[in-house]
């Protein structure tokens, strides 16, 4: 399985250590890790809860991964997304790509996180000193995802 939704904490370094290990046809590995920040829009963030739509999430992630593999000659792909409650500094998502050459690995990695952000059913609830609030979708995320439409 190269797409995983996990409830507990995961360690991107450990996952990356195992990713594409022992393959000497891989010349390039790109990765992206998204983490909980302790601040958003000028307000402290105490914790973050990721809600998702079980079943549809995995289906969408698998579809996005398939699209990446169709567009670039990837030798390996990994997508891990955490759900549940997490604290600042903890990883939310890891995307990794392996290819013979760097352009494919770098572009596919950016594509995967851009599409994941707008096409996978996750929702963020932030806990702040003033209470909990649902994070609003950003137009810049739609713009980033639209770069890859064709």
């Amino acid at each position, binding site marked *: 399985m190269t797409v995983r939704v996990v409830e507990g904490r995961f360690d991107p370094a450990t996952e990356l250590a195992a990713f594409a290990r022992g393959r000497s046809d891989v010349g390039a590995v790109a990765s992206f890790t998204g983490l909980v920040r302790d601040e958003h829009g000028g307000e402290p963030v105490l914790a973050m809860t990721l*809600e*998702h739509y079980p079943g549809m999430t995995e289906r969408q992630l698998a579809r996005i991964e398939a699209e990446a593999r169709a567009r670039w000659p990837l030798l390996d792909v990994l997508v891990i997304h955490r759900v549940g409650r997490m604290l600042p500094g903890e990883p939310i998502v890891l995307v990794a790509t392996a290819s013979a050459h760097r352009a494919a690995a770098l572009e596919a990695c950016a594509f995967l996180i851009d599409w994941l952000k707008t096409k*996978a059913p*996750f*929702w*963020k609830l932030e806990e702040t000193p003033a209470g909990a609030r649902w*994070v*609003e*979708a950003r137009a810049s995320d739609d713009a980033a995802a639209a770069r890859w439409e064709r």
Partner: protein
Amino acid sequence: MRIRYFAWLKQRVGLAEEELDPPPEVTTVGRLKAWLGERHPRFAEACAAPGVVRAAVDQEFADDDRPLRGAREVAFFPPVTGG
């Protein structure tokens, strides 16, 4: 038909899911929204703002004109914010 709500829509409606049997004239996602709005005034409020309530039919994103024929599960939720 199973109706599911996620994120703040779940809080507005006050429930995560319900089993409903919409009347025959509810043939599309858009009509289902209107019909559900009669039961849940705060759902109707949310649907009044454009682009705020998204839908999925049997776990596939769906527009308002998507037919409901054969659908077993319809979900409503705000724009996604993962990653």
